[in-house]
């Protein structure tokens, strides 16, 4: 339809950046081509959230997703990978519609406090996700977990690339 065409110039893929701000902090940023209220909605409605949180390349499935998005409300994500299951759960600490979400992660003592801010500019939204871990070790372990989540093959390929990178950088 015509209306569709005019609202949809070929969407540009925006770049995701990750920076380790300190030994205990990690910051992920990304711009989305939509207003903050829409991006926020995709983070706070379980039926939308579960469509993107576990991409295929993670090699897991999201079995269930419960989110009670209000201060003091709980969330619980149940994952399946192969024959095993795991859960990701915690509490929302701050909920400011269309601008800020803060939640804790309570599966272990090493869980992070995650703050997500949504900043709208010219119809686009800059999303900043900040994770604060209780210790350096907890953050290191989380990174390794993420690597595992991306699938063994992927991690292996990365390792190979690093190895190659190391050799390429040598005089």
């Amino acid at each position, binding site marked *: 339809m015509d*209306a*569709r065409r005019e*609202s*949809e110039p070929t*969407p540009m*893929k*925006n770049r*995701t*950046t*990750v*920076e*380790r701000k300190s030994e205990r902090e*990690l910051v*992920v940023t*990304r711009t*989305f*081509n*939509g207003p903050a209220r*829409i*991006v926020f*909605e*995709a983070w706070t409605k379980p039926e*939308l959230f579960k*469509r*993107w*949180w*576990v*991409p295929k*390349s*993670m090699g897991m499935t999201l079995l269930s997703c419960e989110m009670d998005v209000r201060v003091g409300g709980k969330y619980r994500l149940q994952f399946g990978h192969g024959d095993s299951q795991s859960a990701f759960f915690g509490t929302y600490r701050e909920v400011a519609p269309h601008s800020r979400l803060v939640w804790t992660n309570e599966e272990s003592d090493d869980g992070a406090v995650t703050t997500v801010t949504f900043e709208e500019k010219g119809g686009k939204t800059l999303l900043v*996700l900040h994770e604060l871990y209780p210790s350096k070790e907890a953050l*290191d372990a989380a*990174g*390794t977990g*993420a*690597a595992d*989540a*991306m699938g063994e093959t*992927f*991690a292996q390929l*990365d*390792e*190979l*690339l*690093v*190895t*190659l*990178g*190391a*050799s*390429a*950088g*040598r005089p």
Partner: protein
Amino acid sequence: MVQYSQARFDASFAALSDATRRGVLEQLGRADASITDLAEKFHMTLTGMKKHVGVLEQAGLVTTEKVGRVRTCKLGLRRLDEEAAWIERYRQLWDARFDELDKVVEELKRKEKVDGRKKRK
């Protein structure tokens, strides 16, 4: 990321195509070792192990250093690269998620537009 020359790539893949050499890399990932240690561990002659280490060294996967009569082998990895790779893997995870989120956002935008038109009617 860094550009890798084709020759390097070929050398590395060739080096990694052998099970013993992959085992040697794994072993060196745990601790540095002399060629003699490695030969013993992999039940191999010294000459055989020297050959394998030579291939790994050629590919830049291993470095060796001779002190006295002992040649010590270590991984050709540097701390900085490990850290960079760790961050990159984490980035890939979020990037994969956000690509999916893009689709959800596009769909919601379309829906809003359609709903908006309906309301105006």
